[in-house]
């Protein structure tokens, strides 16, 4: 390992990377090599972004679209966690369930969430149901996989201790597998939130009212590339905030369990 890098240092380096990227982007966009509609400059995108914050486009302001998207995302993500984590733990404990579910699950998880779009629209409609299903399809696999891994890699000595104390299965799952899997589950939730949020644009292809993805699709239809890019920036920023929030929760839980040094 390298020498420890201080927090201020690491934040500074992060900004440096961002500044280089924006600088390059700006240079390329203003060089005249590419037409502005192909590659809008950061300044144009920023202007568009600020405008969208206040003025409606495709039926809502950017915060309005974000709120609609976030609600869909939250439903899909929470649903994925509520079903995926228990399923993963159960698969880690009951060998038979593992054998039954694993092959099916391993095949299905390679199908990209966006491939479900036609069926999501057919089965659950274009209201709230369809988009939630697509986000669910993105967010579900990491929940299952990480809970499963967590349960599989529990210290076998703790399982032996639990068995020796006569602990019934349901209690072993809740009081040994679950707490021991918390770090793995949380990192699964981080990946899951990322993938769920990423699936948003696909999910909102079939939405007819509001959402960042919907806004971007409308922007594309109107050849407003700045709108599309403003949407990308918004998705990136919210994704970053989401990941930071989950990372903070992870750290708080670790500290409460005393596993942080």
């Amino acid at each position: 390992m390298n020498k420890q890098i201080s927090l201020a240092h690491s934040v500074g380096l992060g900004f440096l990377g961002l500044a280089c990227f924006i600088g390059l982007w700006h240079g390329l966009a203003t060089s005249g090599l590419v037409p502005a509609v192909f590659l809008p400059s950061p300044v144009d995108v920023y202007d568009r972004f600020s405008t969208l914050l206040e003025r409606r486009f495709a039926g809502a302001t950017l915060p309005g679209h974000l709120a609609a998207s976030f609600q869909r995302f939250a439903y899909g993500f929470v649903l994925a966690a509520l079903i995926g984590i228990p399923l993963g733990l159960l698969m880690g404990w009951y060998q038979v369930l593992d054998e039954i579910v694993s092959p099916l699950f391993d095949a299905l998880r390679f199908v990209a969430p966006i491939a479900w779009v036609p069926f999501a629209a057919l089965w659950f409609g274009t209201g709230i149901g369809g988009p939630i299903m697509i986000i669910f399809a993105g967010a579900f696999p990491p929940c299952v996989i990480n809970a499963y891994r967590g349960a599989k890699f529990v210290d076998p000595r703790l399982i032996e201790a639990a068995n020796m104390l006569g602990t019934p299965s349901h209690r072993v799952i809740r009081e040994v597998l679950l707490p021991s899997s918390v770090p793995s589950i949380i990192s699964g939730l981080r990946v899951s939130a990322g993938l769920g949020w990423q699936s948003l644009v696909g999910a909102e292809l079939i939405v007819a009212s509001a959402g960042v993805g919907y806004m971007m699709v409308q922007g594309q239809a109107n050849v407003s590339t700045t709108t599309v890019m403003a949407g990308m920036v918004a998705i990136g920023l919210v994704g970053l905030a989401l990941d930071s929030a989950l990372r903070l929760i992870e750290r708080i839980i670790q500290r409460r369990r005393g596993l942080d040094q």
Partner: protein
Amino acid sequence: MGVIQFQDVGKIFGPKTSGFKALQDINLEIRDKEFVAIVGPSGCGKTTCLRMVAGLDNPTAGVVSVDGTPIKRPGPDRAVVFQQFALFPWKTVYDNIDVGLRNLNVARREREARIADILNLMNLTQYAGHFPHQLSGGMQQRVAIARAYVLDPDVLLMDEPFGALDAQTRVVMQEELVRLARKNPRTVLFITHAVEEAVYLADRVAIMPRAPGRIKEVRDIAAIRNAENWDSHEKIEDVMDLESFVHLRTHIWRSLREEKAAQHA
């Protein structure tokens, strides 16, 4: 009651014909409330003996039984104290001790009373709300012993419980275990590689040289301990200085060494 019986017990890890022969022809009976130590070098199979009584391993030959019933699975009637403590890191001391009692569906009031008693007995009362990682190794093993003792098990199985502790802490724990075992006798099967520890703690010592594990000899300690009144000495070092102690220790030590020498020749 808590009579442990090994009848012609063998254990092979891996395939029956080509696997590793860990134990062979083990015959041993541990009487009710008797404290028996199995002493031997690492890898001799002594821990496997304990794990079979616990129900964590099954014999490939013969029968291991408690009170005449062959053992099928682990259970709180045979509480284990593991070398690496195996406390639940996310549970407090109190909650760790509570697990087994909850599994036995003991009423809340009685659980509280029994845990308070055992905490008091093990000098842990002020640490009830602590998490294991906040405690030293010695304290953690005290919690593990409390977790086993609180179940009032017929049989107590201790797998090198003091092996992970430093020498000073080990001595304190040995003295405490003697105190506990005299006050509240149980059938105890104690596994160790330390000859002194076995002689100091046990009523009988089974000597098990290197694999394939067989019990070479079972040495009676209790008769000599009582005749020489070891328990009148409060400190372990005073007992260890007694001629009768030194004599037994040397005998067991030689018995283990002779086997090794014979194998090397």
